[in-house]
């Protein structure tokens, strides 16, 4: 079981993590952040995350921490 933490204050909503997650566990929120963008959130109800860190590798703003 693995999970990620997203720093929502730094997220600019580029969605590179969303398209790079092999299991589609990151989705765009409707909530608007302090920077005026729709942020992303991690939704893993079935504990599918393997901690591959593809999302974190692609995040240009280093918003993602991976725990495994």
């Amino acid at each position, binding site marked *: 079981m*693995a999970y990620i933490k997203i720093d929502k204050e730094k997220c600019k909503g580029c*969605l*590179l993590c969303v398209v790079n997650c092999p299991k589609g566990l990151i989705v765009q929120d409707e909530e608007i952040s302090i920077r005026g*963008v729709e942020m992303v959130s991690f939704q893993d109800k079935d504990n599918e995350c393997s901690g591959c860190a593809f999302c974190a*590798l*692609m995040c*240009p703003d*280093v918003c993602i*921490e991976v725990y495994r």
Partner: protein
Amino acid sequence: MEKTFSRPKSMRNVVMHYCAGCGHGIVHRLICEVIDEFKIREKTIAIAPVGCAVLAYDYWDFDTTESAHGRAPAVATGIKRILPDRIIFTYQGDGDLAAIGTAEIIHTANRGENITVIFVNNAVYGMTGGQMAPTTILGQKTETTPWGREPKSDGYPLKISEMLSLLPGVVYIERTAVNNAKNVLLTKRAIKKAFLNQIENKGFSLVEVLSSCPTYWHMSPVEAMKWIDTEMTKYYPLGVIKNNC
């Protein structure tokens, strides 16, 4: 449960000024990771460029100096000659390295200075507002080539890495990209190799990183990363261009 990925120690915990989806943030992080892994943070001196990455010193937590536009390799030469035990690298964009700084990079490479150059190529001028750069590919629309770059009036894109590979002073040149997770890992490997060459006193190394500029390519960040793969790598093929070490 263990933390397996987080912000490198050499990278300050601040919000960067880059646009959403800009590749600079990824390259900044990779450099910091390599510096942390080699444990050379206390003896690294970076030279920041003029361009979008002009504020890089706000994001890196090691010694950084600023240079005049395009003159980063000349500043790096000076620092390396005075302090040969330090690790010196320049971080330059394509406007900085391939346009105004062409003379400096060619002569620094030709002298075989023992420095590392990280060349971020996004095929457009970012900071000044999206004008054509020497590396803009044929047909690419920019503010100054609104119908696409034409070889007749605008010339051909400059393949600076291939040009520099002809010089005997150069030991290592590789072109990579940051458009997907695999290429990000390959970019990190190339940056690591370029720093290792300097640590082992082998000579001049350059890593050209194809990066995205969603704002001035007028695309979404996801489309921009795809465009690197479908269009940019056709003209700028990825891989090791010179390895003499």
